[in-house]
């Protein structure tokens, strides 16, 4: 199957006695957009962090475009062409928007002119021009999320992993983020961990539901939403 970009088999992770991730088989095809949902503590971030190399799985294997990447350090996985945003926003607070994006661009462009051009391109694409010389620490939450998305897309990744990209965003910001994600998805496969069901509904095609460290269900949007078990475990949550 040449068009599989990501595959895991029997992926597990324990934290002491806690089984955070339990024997997960997962498959993602080129240019697919997949949302991971599930209640708090379901193991979404643990699964996500195993993929990115931020934590090592206790058991199982991960393959990306045919390479086994299990246990690789995060910079090696990123260098394959994987764009990553973790659940906790992670930007260079003491640097400006331009400097942040430049650092992402410089990883992929040896010549500083090329890096500079790419930086300007991304800043223009995200309409961040007016604040390009402001420090990240001085920006609003939504703008910082946007810059982080810029960091993720600068390297033209073929696989994009996003843990809660819409968390804490205003409705307008969410619309904007949704548009950008669709744009990125034109060239990259994507996994998005998300709680906000409205947001998921606005972007999703296929959905994987995590529950207690396992994959409970994997199906199209509408079928997942009407599944009684999914409704049960989400009861009481803001939908």
């Amino acid at each position, binding site marked *: 199957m040449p068009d599989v970009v990501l595959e895991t088999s029997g992926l597990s992770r324990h934290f002491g006695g806690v089984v955070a991730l339990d024997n997960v088989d997962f498959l993602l095809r080129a240019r697919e957009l997949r949302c991971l949902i599930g209640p708090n503590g379901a193991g979404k971030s643990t699964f996500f962090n195993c993929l*990115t190399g*931020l934590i090592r799985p206790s058991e199982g294997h991960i393959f990306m475009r045919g390479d086994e990447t299990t246990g690789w*350090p*995060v*910079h090696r996985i*990123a*260098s394959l062409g994987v764009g*990553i*945003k*973790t659940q906790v926003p*992670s*930007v*260079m*607070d*003491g*640097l400006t928007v331009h*400097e942040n994006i*430049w*650092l*992402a661009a*410089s*990883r992929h462009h040896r010549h*500083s002119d090329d890096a500079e051009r790419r930086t300007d391109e991304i800043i223009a694409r995200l309409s961040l021009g007016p604040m390009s*010389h402001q420090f990240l620490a001085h920006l609003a939450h939504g703008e910082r999320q946007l810059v982080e998305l810029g*960091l993720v897309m600068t*390297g033209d990744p073929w696989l994009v992993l996003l843990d809660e990209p819409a968390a804490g965003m205003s409705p307008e910001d969410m619309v904007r983020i949704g548009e950008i994600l669709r744009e990125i998805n034109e060239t990259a496969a994507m996994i998005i961990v998300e709680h906000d069901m409205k947001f998921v509904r606005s972007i999703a095609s296929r959905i994987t539901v995590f529950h207690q460290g396992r994959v409970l269900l994997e199906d199209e949007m509408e079928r997942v939403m009407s599944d009684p078990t999914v409704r049960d475990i989400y009861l009481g949550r803001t939908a």
Partner: protein
Amino acid sequence: MTAVAVPVTLVLPQVIDSYTLTVLAIYAMLALSLGLVWGYGGILCFGQAAFFGLGAYGYAIGALNVGESTIALIAAVAATAAIAAVLGAMMFYGRLGDVYLAIITLVVTLILYRFMSSTAGDAYVLGKARLGGFNGIPGFPTLHVPGNPSAYIWGDALYYVCAASLVLVLALVTLLLRSGFGRVAVGIRENETRMGLLGYDVRARKTLLFTIGAAVAALAGALYANWGEIVTPRLFGLTQSAEIIIWCIVGGFGTRLGPILGAASMGYLKFLLGQQSLVDNTLVMGLILILVVLFLPRGLVPALEGLWIAAWQRMPARQMQRRRRNLA
């Protein structure tokens, strides 16, 4: 910045004797090495004195064995850099947290202090050099014109060599910080995880920066050996380790000028206080440190920069931007 450095270097000997100035230039270089590693790289090294001491000892041992200064100087810097590379790789590839790194670097320094102090016996001889325990190593050949071992460089000439080395190191550090490597190092200081997620090998880059910092400290150490004409375990002492950090905090981390001016001014003050017995100099140093931390938490140079920028507040925004970047 170099344009200012050169005239200052030439004028200073008219005001302060060159023997004192020499050691101030050396201290400034040592502080700059920590300023690079800690201030720009975010590596909390509490043991910069270890590399200073190793550079000094390396020079003394090398000079006694080859009977000549050029090779000894180069070998001292290279050997220290190699040791730092190994130590750095162990710490950074071992994913040590900031606090543990600080502790380990300090412990390494204290171990070197203990070890060098206990090398009085006949067993501790490296070639023609006796390590000499607490009394250290005296009587090694000092700096001379390369290729001419009888043309010693001392007095005013040694000052000019040290000052020129400082200016050269400052210029190289400036170039390094403007390069891609330097900008990435600052990115790592700001957010290590993020830089890893962007595909940068944080461990390798930190190891390299740590090694470069150690090499600069070692050069300062080798020059110090020439100034003092003796090396002793005190170079690895707790006082020396703490002083480097105090210089940088007073002058201001995150700038190049801060550590240099911090080291030179605190070093000179210590020298002045050493000439009287009315007040204890550690007390005064401590007091200055506390006052700076309380009232100028970013240090003297950033505070002065702030004033300078405030004075230019009315400038058009674009000109300001350029000015700020030049200052950084």
